[in-house]
C-alpha cells in the first residue's frame, strides 16, 4: 500500500477536525441573523452529532473484522449498538433531559442527595471513559501500521496528543458541529467504497477467492449460536449504551424532553443505515480476503479491501477515504469522551476552573494512552463490548432505578454500583487466568453481563429496601420533575 495516501488522509482529517473545532464558532453572525443564532440545535443536527460521537473504532473497523473472523455471531454487535438507543429512548432520554443535570454524577447527586453516591459515580464514569478510549487508540495504532508502515505506537500517540491539545485549548466549543461533520464523513467513507466495490465485483472481476459454501459455511451461521453468550452480549450492549458518559452529555443540547426523544429516534435511523456498510464489508471480506482472518489482523479488513479489489488510482482513492473515516472515528469518539471526562474530573477534583479543565483533559487522554501502549488489541469490537458490559453492570442499574423507582437510596445505589464494578471488573480483567484454572466458567467470564447486571440490580434493590430511612427527602419532587412533560414551547 502506498504510504503517501495514508499520511495525506490522516493529516487532512486531523486538520479538518481541529479547524472546525476552533473556527466553527468564529463564523460571526450579524444582527439580522439574531433569530438564527438563538435557535436551538435541531434534533437532526444533534442526532448526527450523537452518531458522530458514538461510532467509534469498534463500529468502523471492528464489526467488519469480527464478521470476517466469526461469521454471523458478529452481527449481534451492530444490532446491540443500535438497539441500545431504543432502551435510551424508552427509559432514559426524556427524563434525564428534564432533570436539568448535565452529567451522570450531577444526576446522581441531585437524585440521591448524597456526595458519596456522586463520588462513586464519578469514579466509575472516569474508569469507563478511560477504558473506552483505549480501543480507539489501538485502532489508530493498527491503522497507522497498516497504511503507513510506521510503528504502532505512533498512531496511538498521535491521536492522544491531537485530542489532548484540541480539547485543552478549548477547540471543542462548538462540538455539535464537529461531531455532526464526523458522522457524515464516517458514513460517506464506508458507503462510497462499499457501493464502488459491489459495482466492481458485480462485473465478475476480480473473482471471489472462496466459493459461496466456503465463504459462508453453515457452521458460522445463525443456527450455531451459543444462547448464553448471545443473551449476555445483548444485555451488555442494550443496557451499556444507557451509561455512556459522552452520549448522555449530548442530550443536554436538546431544549426539552420531547426533543430528546425525537433526537433518539433519528439516531436510531442514522445508526441503522450506517451499520449496513461495515456489515457489507465483512461479508465481502469473507469471500475476497480470507487470508487476513486472524485475530489482531482482521480489524484492518476495511482498510485493505478496496486496494485489493480495485488496484490502481480508484482503489487508492477509496483507501484514502476509508482511512480518513477511520481517523474521524478515533478522533471524534476520543475527543467526545475526553471532553466529558475532563468535565467530570475538573468539577469533582479540581474545583471546576478553566485551568483544572485543561489539566483534566490532558490527564484523561494520557492515562488511556499508557494502557493502550501496554496492551495488545485482540479485537476492537470485543473490547468495546466489554466496556459496555462494565457500564451495564454499574451505571445502568443506578440510572434506570433512579428514574423509575422511588425507593432507591444512596446506600443502595453505592452498594449496587460497587457490586457490579467488582464482579464485572474481576470477570473482565481476571477472566483469562480464572478460566485457565476452571475451563467450565469461560463463557460466563467472557460475557459477564447476563449475571452481573441482575446481581447489581438485586443488590441495589435489597440494600435500598433495608435502608428505608435513607430515602432522599426530595424524591417525590425530583421524580415529578423527571416525568411530567414540559409545557409546549413555541
Amino acid at each position, binding site marked *: 500500500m502506498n504510504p503517501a495516501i495514508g499520511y495525506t488522509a490522516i493529516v487532512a482529517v486531523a486538520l479538518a477536525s481541529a479547524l472546525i473545532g476552533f473556527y466553527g*464558532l*468564529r463564523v*460571526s*453572525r*450579524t*444582527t439580522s*441573523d*439574531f*433569530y438564527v*443564532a*438563538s*435557535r*436551538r*440545535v435541531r434534533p437532526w*443536527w444533534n442526532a448526527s452529532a450523537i452518531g458522530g460521537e458514538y461510532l467509534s473504532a469498534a463500529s468502523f473497523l471492528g464489526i467488519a473484522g469480527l464478521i470476517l473472523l466469526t461469521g454471523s455471531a458478529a452481527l449481534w454487535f451492530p444490532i446491540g449498538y443500535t438497539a441500545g438507543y431504543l432502551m435510551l429512548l424508552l427509559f432514559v432520554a426524556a427524563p434525564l433531559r428534564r*432533570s*436539568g*443535570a*448535565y*452529567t451522570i454524577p*450531577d*444526576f446522581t*447527586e*441531585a437524585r440521591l442527595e448524597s456526595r458519596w453516591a456522586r463520588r462513586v459515580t464519578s469514579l466509575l464514569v472516569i474508569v469507563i471513559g478511560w477504558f473506552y478510549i483505549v480501543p480507539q487508540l489501538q485502532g489508530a495504532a493498527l491503522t497507522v501500521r497498516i497504511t503507513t508502515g510506521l510503528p504502532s505506537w505512533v498512531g496511538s500517540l498521535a491521536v492522544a496528543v491531537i485530542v489532548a491539545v484540541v480539547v485543552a485549548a*478549548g477547540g*471543542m*466549543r*462548538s*462540538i*455539535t458541529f464537529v461531531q455532526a461533520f464526523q458522522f457524515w464523513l464516517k458514513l460517506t467513507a464506508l458507503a462510497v467504497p462499499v457501493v464502488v466495490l459491489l459495482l466492481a465485483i458485480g462485473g465478475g472481476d476480480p473473482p471471489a477467492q472462496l466459493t459461496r459454501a466456503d465463504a459462508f459455511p453453515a457452521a458460522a451461521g445463525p443456527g450455531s449460536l451459543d444462547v448464553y453468550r448471545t443473551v449476555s452480549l445483548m444485555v451488555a450492549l442494550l443496557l451499556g449504551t444507557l451509561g455512556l458518559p459522552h452520549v448522555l452529555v449530548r442530550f*443536554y*443540547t*436538546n*431544549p426539552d424532553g420531547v426533543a430528546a426523544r425525537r433526537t433518539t429516534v433519528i439516531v436510531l435511523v442514522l445508526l441503522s443505515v450506517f451499520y449496513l456498510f461495515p456489515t457489507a464489508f465483512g461479508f465481502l471480506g469473507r469471500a475476497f480476503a480470507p487470508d487476513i482472518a486472524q485475530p489482531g489482523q482482521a480489524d484492518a479488513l476495511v482498510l485493505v479491501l478496496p486496494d485489493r479489489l480495485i488496484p490502481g488510482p480508484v482503489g487508492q482513492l477509496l483507501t484514502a477515504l476509508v482511512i480518513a473515516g477511520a481517523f474521524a472515528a478515533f478522533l471524534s469518539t476520543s475527543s467526545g469522551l475526553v*471532553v466529558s471526562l*475532563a*468535565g*467530570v474530573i*475538573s*468539577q469533582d477534583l479540581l474545583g*471546576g476552573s*478553566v485551568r483544572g*479543565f485543561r489539566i483534566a483533559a490532558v490527564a484523561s487522554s494520557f492515562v488511556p494512552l499508557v*494502557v493502550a501502549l*501496554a*496492551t*495488545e488489541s485482540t479485537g476492537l469490537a470485543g473490547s468495546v463490548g466489554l466496556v459496555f458490559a462494565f457500564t451495564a453492570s454499574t451505571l445502568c442499574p443506578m440510572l434506570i432505578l433512579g428514574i423509575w423507582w422511588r425507593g432507591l437510596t444512596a446506600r443502595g445505589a453505592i452498594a449496587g454500583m460497587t457490586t457490579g464494578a467488582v464482579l464485572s471488573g474481576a470477570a473482565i*480483567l*481476571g477472566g*483469562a*487466568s480464572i478460566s485457565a484454572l476452571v475451563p467450565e466458567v469461560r463463557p460466563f467470564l467472557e460475557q459477564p453481563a447476563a449475571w452481573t447486571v441482575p446481581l447489581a440490580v438485586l443488590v441495589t434493590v435489597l440494600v435500598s429496601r433495608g435502608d428505608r*430511612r435513607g*430515602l432522599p*427527602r426530595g424524591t417525590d419532587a*425530583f421524580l415529578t*420533575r423527571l416525568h411530567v412533560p*414540559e*409545557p409546549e*414551547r*413555541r
Partner: protein
Amino acid sequence: MPESTLLAAAAGAAAGALAVAVMLVLRRLVVASKELGTDAEQATYQTLHLASRAAKHLRGGIGEVDATRAGRHLRALLGCESLALVDPAGGVTVEGDEAVRAVAGRLAAEADASGRPQVQRRIRIGVGDTARETDAVAAPIRTDGRPAGAIVAFAAPVRAGLVRATGEVAEWVAAQVELGELDASRAALAEAEVRALRAQISPHFIYNSLNAIASFINTDPAEARELVLEFADFTRYSFRRHGDFTTVAEELRSIDSYLRLERARFGDRLTVTLQIAPEVLSTVVPFLSIQPLVENAVRHGLESKEGGGRITITAGDSGAFAELSVEDDGVGIDPTVLEAALAGGAPGEHVGLRNVDARLRQVYGDEHGLVVETNIGAGTLVRMRVPKSQPGRMAASAESPRPADGRLER
C-alpha cells in the same frame, strides 16, 4: 504477555489501595483509643455526638421523615425503651416498640396542656397476649411560646433522672427547631433579595423607545408598527412575574428585541456581532442577567461615543460551564468608579452591572460573579461563567404564543 502485565498491575494497585486503607483504619483506632479519656469524658462525648447527629434532622421541624431519623438518636440519648415524637398536628412517630403509638398522642396532649413534663405510671400498651404495663414521661416542645409538638419517653420504670433528661431534651429539641426556622427565614430572605434585585426595566429606555417610535409614525408607519410590536415583546418578557430563571435562548430573544429598538435611535452607528455555541442555548440563567449587560454597553459605552460602535455577544461551551460575554468598543469605564459601583456604593450609573453581579453571586456563589475588563477609552468586556448543571432550578417556560399576526414564524 501484556494481558498478564495489566492484570498484575491492576492486582498490585488494588492490593496497595487495600494496604493503605487498612493502615488508615488501624491508625485511627490507635489514635482514638489514646484520646478517649475517663468514663465521664467518654459519656460527654457520646452524648454530644448523639445530640449533633440528631440535630441536623430536627432543623426542618418534626415532620415524619426527619422525626424517624432523629428519633433513633434521641432514644439512644435518653436510654429509654421506646420514644415517640408527636408533631403539633397529632402525627406520631415511634422509635422502638410500635405498641406505644396508641397512647402517645393522649400523653402528648396532656403534657401540652400542662406545659410541663408529665409522668404517667402503669399504662397498658399492646393488645391480647403481648399487652403489658409501662411508665411514660411526656414533655412538651415549645418554640416562641407556641406548642411545636411533644416528646414521649417510655421506660419501666421511669426514674427521676429520665424525667429530668426528657424535659431537657425537649427544650433542646425546641431550640433546634427554632434554629431550623431561622435557617428557613434566612433562605427566604435570600430569595426575596434575589427577587428584589430582579432587574427593572429602565425608564430611560421606555422614554427613548417611545420617542424613536413616534419619529417613525409619519415617515415610515410600517417600521413604526414593527417597533411597537418589538416593544410589546420586550416589555412582556421583562415584566413577567413568574420564575426567577430563564434560558440563554430566551434571554437572547429579549436582547434581540431590545437591540432593534435601540437601533431605531442609533441607526447604522450600532453594529452587533454574535458568536453563539448552540450547546449553551438551553443553559439555565437568572432571569434578565444578560440583557442588562447589553444595555450597559449601549448606554455607558456607545451612547457617548462619536460614530457609535460595535457590541460583541458570545456564548461558549467550556466543559461543564457556559461562558457568556458582552464586549463593546465604547468609551470604557474608570476602574475605580466601577469598583465602587460593584461594591454597592451610591446607586448611580452601572446599577445594572451591580444588580447582575449580586444576583449571580447570590445564586451560584462568589466565584461566579461578573468579571469586568475595562479602562477609560479601552472599551468594556463583561464575562460570566454559569454551571450547565442546575438540577434544582427550572427555567420558567415561555409564555403563551403571541396573537396570530403573522409574526410567529419569522
